């Protein structure tokens, strides 16, 4: 047998140690998810032994009005808070990128606070805020009753949008802006024709980030949610308190599939792989 040449210093993937390491990482990362999804099709009340394939827990899921309501709440909150975060985050990023003003450094730092402050602290802070400082009126019709949660979600997700958009703007060539002005465009026309198109990939990435952050947030929501404003993660948590039933598995599977689909769609829409670099910021949470 002809021998292959020894792996070069940077050919990590040809070393068996590295391959084993990669395999281990993949297993520890994805095995629990795969197991969770697999057992949502298990024809058994217990989550331990495989009995046979069934879709009945999905059927149950889609007929569970409380769960569906929570799911609807989650989607609504995520959609609204994404739109608001996008506006606030992009505006903040633009201001920090474009202008010099007193207190800029302070604002820059303050913007990062919601990213670094522990979620539990944010949660308690929100609880105190909505209990003492600005109580959200009770008994409002849906979806106005979700206002408190939406405000809470916007407050922790718009800094992520700002960070992603700002990173993108750092690569903007100011001569583009001047070229548009030179060719006759006014200030707003320049923003629309030149700055926004450059920003677009980061807006998509930021929106995706804000949406998923909101959709799967548990801690902060838990402290702001009332009895009639239960979100999907909070609902799942309350189901788990009794026992981990296959319904929980099924619900989680739906959530995972939804997130993966959204991510894939966003990546495809963006087209620019470099622009997704900022998305990694979400993993730090």
């Amino acid at each position, binding site marked *: 047998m002809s021998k292959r040449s020894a792996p070069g210093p940077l050919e990590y993937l040809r070393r068996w140690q590295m391959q084993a390491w990669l395999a281990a990482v993949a297993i520890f990362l994805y095995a629990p998810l795969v197991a969770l999804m697999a057992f949502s099709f298990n024809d058994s009340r217990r989550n331990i032994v495989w009995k046979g394939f069934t879709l009945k827990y999905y059927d149950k899921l889609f007929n569970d009005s409380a769960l569906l309501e929570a799911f609807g709440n989650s989607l609504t909150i995520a959609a609204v808070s994404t739109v608001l975060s996008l506006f606030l985050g992009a505006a903040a990023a633009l201001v920090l990128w474009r202008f010099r003003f007193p207190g800029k450094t302070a604002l820059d730092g303050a913007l990062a606070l919601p990213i670094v402050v522990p979620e539990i602290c944010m949660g308690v802070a929100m609880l105190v805020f909505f209990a003492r400082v600005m109580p959200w009126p009770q008994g409002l019709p849906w979806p106005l009753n979700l206002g408190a949660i939406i405000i809470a979600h916007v407050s922790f997700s718009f800094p992520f949008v700002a960070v992603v958009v700002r990173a993108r703007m750092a690569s903007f060539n100011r001569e583009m802006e001047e070229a548009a002005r*030179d*060719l*006759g465009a006014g200030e707003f026309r320049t923003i629309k024709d030149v700055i926004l198109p450059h920003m677009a990939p980061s807006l998509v990435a930021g929106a995706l980030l804000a949406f998923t952050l909101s959709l799967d947030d548990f801690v902060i929501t838990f402290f702001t949610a009332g009895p009639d404003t239960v979100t999907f993660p909070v609902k799942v948590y309350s189901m788990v308190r009794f026992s981990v039933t296959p319904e929980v598995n099924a619900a989680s599977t739906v959530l995972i599939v939804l997130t993966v689909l959204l991510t894939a769609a966003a990546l495809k829409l963006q087209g620019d792989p470099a622009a997704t670099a900022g998305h990694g910021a979400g993993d730090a949470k």
Partner: protein
Amino acid sequence: MSKPIITFENVSKRFGKMTAVDDVSLTIHEGEFFSLLGPSGCGKTTLLRMLAGFETPTEGRILIDGQDISNTPPNRRPVNMVFQSYAVFPHISVADNVAYGLVVDKVAKAERDRRVEEALELVQLGGLGHRKPDQLSGGQRQRVALARALVKRPRVLLLDEPLSALDAKLREQMRTELCTLQEKVGITFIMVTHDQDEALALATRCAVMSRGVLQQVATPNDLYEFPASRFVADFIGSVNLFEGVLAVDEPSHAVIRSPDLPVDIFLDHGVTGARGGAVWAAIRPEKIELHKKDGDAAPNLGDAPKGTNAVAGVIKHEAYLGGSSTYEVEIASGRRVKVQRSNLTRWDQEDFKLGETVWLCWHACSPAVLLS
């Protein structure tokens, strides 16, 4: 000369404590290919940006066609610019890039299409309108930037270091094309460059700037042969500067005595404006002749008295550049003199060897006398 199109009236620009442009007054005429030349940080780009409207003068006025435009925003000025980075919009096609200025100006679609097509033909990009900028080479992107600016039929086209991002061969080709283009469209071009060759080759007139101050405004030929100051003489091309005093100053001839030279420099003209202080004789390397030294008799070119304009020295350094060779010759005072010699035949390079003792001599009309 034709009528003035741009006038800078005592224009200064300060950024905080830094003065980028210092009291510049300058008139540029219709149809000129004007070049702003100077080392980086000399204020030439600031001057151009004030013309485009990206900076406003701290003092003074800028007039275009007699109208004060000092405070007009860039989108309302009859000038267009080709940026150093080209700044071609990456997200739209070449044709859309070129059409942008017309769309903003609400030019009707039929006319727009026709003018875009014309402009693309003009810069030899006909048929590439549907491409995206990332499918073009650097040189082609620059043509897009040119077409995009020219399609608006500006009064003046501004070019910010237009050739600096191109490789040497392409740069030379674009030089010729820029010249032809300017003749074809007849628009006044103003170009900023730090490359003296570029300025000399392209411009009909150049302004040399240093530390925000205009040093000299002249044709390329005058800049090179009749520099106004040591800075200009040294910045444009290569030069040997000899500091000295005027020993003789008659209307018909003058003599400069320099401690660096064992002989006098004889000039075939008088020096006007000299006040008896220090003067400098600037002699270009190609205007100094190399002669073999056989015997002690100095060669004489016939236009200067014996014992002037000729000095012996030893070749200390030589560089073969193909078309010419440059030598550094050390003379008695220890001073090294730069000499350039054209290689007129294929064996010329072998005429003079390193370490050889030679005569240097020059014509009485060759040195330029500088008073500052």
